[in-house]
């Protein structure tokens, strides 16, 4: 069998392969480290961090939907300082790159976190301006091109690491938002975050989630995600990490063809703790089957009708 090259480069950071975990579905890697060899991941994107610790939302925080799930965890996390002191040393034991995902209520909070993490061993910072599950900040920053541009510009001043901006699909024109982030100095983009949704229990006549609404993820949103990655890839020159319902290697190939340079596995982790490995194997098999020697050969190679 011929050698294949799975290495990719995201904003100056070289990954061994394009498979990364989607923030919030993989904790800080500890639990999954009991099921898979974390060294085999391209990168690990950790649970969303905030400046101060957060308890998150009241349960129930999850509801199943057709081919998907709705969640409203509300960024339960121990805070960025705890992460730097207690979780980075664990993650550093592995060769996978480390991506810290940050959320704030104010621009200043994003900047403080970027500063704190700039002096740490993380490889990339993912700025989450698309979380639908917190009251202030979050998605409010991510749905207006002007605010996306100014927050990216501001955070970039305080950030010595490569900065990736995570985009919300809950917008009218994703291209406009993507360009605003790129103009603001984003080194990479990740998309899509969850779609805002609602599930009602018809017997109690109440929403299942205590928060009433939450973020939809899983295979149900994959076509939306592929479409958005393709649209964004057509207007920006920075790398894209594509995500939304990836369960298999074939799903990952779709995202790469649409223009993503890397792919994040999210909901699938909740169902199968070895999901990332299966996506990676499926991706490699596709390459062998189609005689593709370098993963970069298929990025953005969709042939539009």
């Amino acid at each position, binding site marked *: 069998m011929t050698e294949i090259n799975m290495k990719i480069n995201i904003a100056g950071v070289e990954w061994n392969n394009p498979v990364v975990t989607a923030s*919030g*579905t*993989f*904790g800080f890697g500890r*639990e*999954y480290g*009991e*099921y*898979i*060899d974390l060294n085999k991941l391209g990168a690990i994107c950790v*649970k969303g961090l905030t400046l101060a610790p957060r*308890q*998150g*939302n*009241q*349960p*129930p*925080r*999850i*509801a*199943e939907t*057709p*081919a*998907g*799930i709705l*969640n409203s*965890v509300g960024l*339960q996390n121990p805070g960025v300082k705890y992460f730097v002191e207690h979780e980075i040393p664990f993650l550093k034991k592995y060769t996978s790159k480390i991506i810290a995902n940050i959320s704030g209520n104010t621009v200043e909070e994003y900047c403080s976190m970027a500063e704190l993490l700039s002096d740490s061993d993380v490889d990339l910072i993912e700025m989450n301006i698309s979380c639908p599950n917190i009251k202030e900040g979050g998605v409010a920053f991510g749905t207006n091109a002007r605010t996306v541009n100014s927050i990216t510009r501001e955070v970039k001043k305080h950030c010595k690491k490569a900065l990736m901006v995570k985009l919300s699909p809950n917008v009218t024109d994703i291209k406009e938002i993507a360009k605003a982030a790129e103009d603001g100095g984003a080194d990479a983009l990740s998309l899509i975050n969850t779609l805002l949704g609602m599930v009602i229990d018809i017997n109690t006549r109440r929403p*299942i989630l205590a928060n009433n609404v939450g973020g939809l993820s*899983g*295979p149900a949103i994959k076509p939306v995600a592929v479409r958005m990655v393709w649209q964004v890839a057509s207007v920006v020159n920075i790398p894209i990490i594509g995500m939304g319902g990836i369960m298999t290697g074939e799903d990952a190939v779709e995202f790469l063809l649409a223009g993503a340079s890397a792919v994040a596995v999210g*909901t699938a*982790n*909740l*169902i*199968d*703790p*070895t999901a990332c490995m299966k996506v990676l194997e499926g991706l490699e098999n596709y390459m062998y089957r189609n005689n593709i020697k370098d993963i970069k050969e298929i990025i953005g190679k969709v042939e539009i009708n």
Partner: protein
Amino acid sequence: MYKQNYLSKISYKKEIVPGIFDMRVVCKEIAQQAKPGQFLNIKCCEGLTAILRRPISICDIDTKNQEIRFIFQVKGNGTKLLALKKVGDNIDILGPLGNGYYINDQYTNPLLVGGGIGVFPLLMLIKSISSQNSTVYLGFKNKEMVVLEKDFHKVCSNLQIATDDGSYGHKGYVTQLMEKKLQKDPVDIVYACGPEPMLRLVNNTCKKYNIPCQISLEQRMGCGIGACLVCACKIKTTQDWEYKHVCKDGPVFWGNEVIFDD
């Protein structure tokens, strides 16, 4: 060695009362590791319908035949599909997961209290307790829904059944049986599993009589291993409280650390 999910063959299946299925699967690894109070996270079907696993408590283990027994009620899509599986089919199981009941020989006089589908994990528990002086109270909606009476009887002589409508055994709740016993005859630990209103009452009663109790909580769950953080429950801290998670920190907690919201 990494942990993994297991494709396990169904060796037995029976609808024991309408809508409640007794199922057994063969899996050496799970049978060897499982402890009372732990649970399985079961994929009810292949493909994208009922996409999440369903957490179901372990009812009993047959170590000789490497068989795991679990009993579930058909409630939604997932359990409906699981109930359609046949003997000989394979199902994808992750487990055993979570922390089970705290068993210690210092407890010579334990009381087990179960309600509805919460009675199932107590069977493996009572079999694992060495004390011959255990008491079991099981509560059901009505006579038709009484399950596992024979199984419990085999291993415990102090068994009482209560039904909400009085169609079988004591009329009323198991917590009434519990209160009556504790008034004259203290126990040294209470183990409970059942619906939240029952657990609240058990918890309050234990507090009143100053008896330690262990309760098994339930919450809508995702990964089952402590990563996705959806199955939150309020647990006391020295200062205040925090959200812990049923799958990894529980499902069994000490009653005095659990906060039930009003």
